[in-house]
């Protein structure tokens, strides 16, 4: 054993492993740093793109009030359809859109009104229905944050969002319910709750109540609708409904 050359081969393997580990550590640190870099670039791009869209309104040739300049809408729509299926872009777009919403509420509503007519957000909802759970969650969150996107296609968009519940987690389910509530789709909310019950999907009553309280449509109509159905639903859903409309 003592003079066995395999011993030295073994020592060699250990040394190679040591070097590999050191290289690996450096590689990981480098890749971690690279991960954060592109996000800033995407946000910059969307800030600029939305600035262009809203600046046209502020200039002499108003586009948003009476509709976009021919070609501008379709070019921007094509850009949305091309870029937004990437969740990284969707997040950057959301941030840029939020900036517009905070700083220029009028320009924001005109912009959303223009693009909700083109059904671009409904098309994107369909694209996202074929994506991973976390990406679907991102899109549902986007609709929940910007419900004006569903201004003219509330029912269709709600249907697409409900399809996200297949193979979903609590993140996704919460965001789908929130989106349906924020766009004010009564039928959508009832369908979501029915699915939660039928498939025995876990949702804590407090989470349900918080989302239902944010319903942007007629609260009393929603209350009436859910009150009739909640008796056949599971305890969590019933308790959430009772806590909101029980009095």
């Amino acid at each position, binding site marked *: *054993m*003592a003079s066995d050359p395999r*011993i030295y081969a*073994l*020592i060699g393997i*250990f*040394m190679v*492993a*040591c070097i590999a*580990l*050191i290289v*690996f*550590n450096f590689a*990981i*640190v480098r*890749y*971690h740093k690279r*991960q954060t870099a592109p*996000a800033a670039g995407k946000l910059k791009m969307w800030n600029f793109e939305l600035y262009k869209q809203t600046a046209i309104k502020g200039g002499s040739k108003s586009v948003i009030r009476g509709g976009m300049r021919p070609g501008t809408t379709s070019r921007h729509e094509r850009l949305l359809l091309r870029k937004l299926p990437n*969740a*990284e872009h969707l*997040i950057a777009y*959301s941030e840029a859109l939020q900036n517009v919403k905070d700083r220029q509420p009028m320009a924001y509503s005109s912009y959303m009104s223009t693009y909700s007519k083109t059904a671009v957000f409904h098309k994107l909802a369909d694209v996202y229905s074929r994506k991973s759970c*976390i*990406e679907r*969650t*991102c899109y549902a*969150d986007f609709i929940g944050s910007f419900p004006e996107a569903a201004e003219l296609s509330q029912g269709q968009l709600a249907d697409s969002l409900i399809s996200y519940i297949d193979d979903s*987690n*609590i*993140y996704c389910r*919460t*965001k789908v319910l929130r989106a349906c509530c924020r766009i004010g789709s009564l039928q959508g909310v009832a369908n979501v709750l029915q699915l939660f019950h039928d498939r025995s*999907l*876990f949702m*804590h009553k*407090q*989470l349900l109540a*918080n*989302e239902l309280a944010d319903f942007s449509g007629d609260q009393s109509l929603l209350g009436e609708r859910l009150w009739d159905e909640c008796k056949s639903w599971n305890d969590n859903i019933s308790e959430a409904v009772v806590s909101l409309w029980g009095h």
Partner: protein
Amino acid sequence: MADMLRVFIYYVSVFYLVYLIVFAAFSFLSISIGAYKLYMSNRVLRYKNKLKHDDLPVSVLIPAYNESVTIVNSVNSLLSLDYQQYELIVIDDGSEDDTAQKIIDTFDMKQAYRQIEHKLTCEPETAIYETVVNKVPLTLICKKNGGKGDALNMGINAAGHPYFVCMDADSKLQADSLKEIVAPVFEDDEIVAVGGMILISQCLQMKNGKAVRYRFPPNLLVCMQAVEYSRSFLASRILMDTFNGNLIISGAFGLFQRSAVVAAGGYSPNNLGEDMELVLKLHRFCRNNKIPYRMSYQPSAICMTQAPTTFRDLWSQRRRWHVGLFQSLVVHRRIMFNLKFGLVSFFSYLYYMFYELMSPIIELFGIFAILLAAYMDVLNIEYMIVFLVIYAIYGTIISLSAFSKQIYIQKFRVTFLDMIKTLFLCALEFIFFRYILVVVRIAAFIRYGRNKSTWGKIKRV
């Protein structure tokens, strides 16, 4: 006779080579897969940060026994967490000091007269006090002494939410720790338990409820424990998490689904490793009943705990841990070589058996084998020294990798001097500290029968 001994030593040396190579491969895999998983989870972190959501209500259970020095500070720190819906339940397990009175006085608690349904068996409560501080419901349950597991069972009985977090009375959380530990529940319906990352508080500098700087204290013993913790939490646990094979969720910080724990029978009051025993119990319960389940590990959920600063305290803590490991593995021995448990049986259980429980005996036996080989003049000293040096360098790099991952994930600030210190400490930990632990663990075996059901106490600073 001499020939037989030579053959014996030959096979012993083969055994040790295999033993060390398997351990080295395990360490290598742990570090590589751990880093890859952290890299992947970082990729979706941006999505998750964007997806703000309401918090799932949780009950935080703090069992306490003679904790009058730290309990008020601990409760105070838990009352200002960045979390919307949680309740704090302190369970005073018949303390002989004024632990309960300090809480009652500090938070102006009022006695409540309510029944607690004992779904899990535990010693009866003697008094219940309640109040609300910063909109957080705070409950103190005083009960007869029954051990940590018994106190936790009482807490589970009193908990009002579907998930509970168990903690040590001397542990502290970062402001976002509850949010982080609950996150896996939002991601996976089958989660029954989530383990957090334990860091040593003496090494951390806090700012606005968040650890911002990592700095080694002057106490070498604490420093080496810090290195050991990061290797354990950022290597092996992440690897075992990939196949749902973690056998330990630290009692200092873990989240559990209440209904699953109640169904499995709760904590065992007489086990010194009640945290490990519960995890094994959940594995068995879910697999035996064919319940889909997952136990996750969340390295971004940080809990800070005080490490022992003296050999005496370290001795006492590690003895408890090792006896607890022994008790848990023995109680759940049916997991071993059981196909129903898959990798939990053939990887995790065997790892804990051979590389944790049996390691002191194996290492001690190794020293005897070296002495015997030297006596018989069959020891290749040159090779032995080269091998040990290379193995020590390898172990040091493994520790260093785990430690640098931790610094990187938590975005801690470290100085160049700290990095040099880290290198030195990683080497020292591998060469020196592990042998201290060998002695402690052997002592745990020898003195197994003594003080099996006491609370572990270390001197608080």
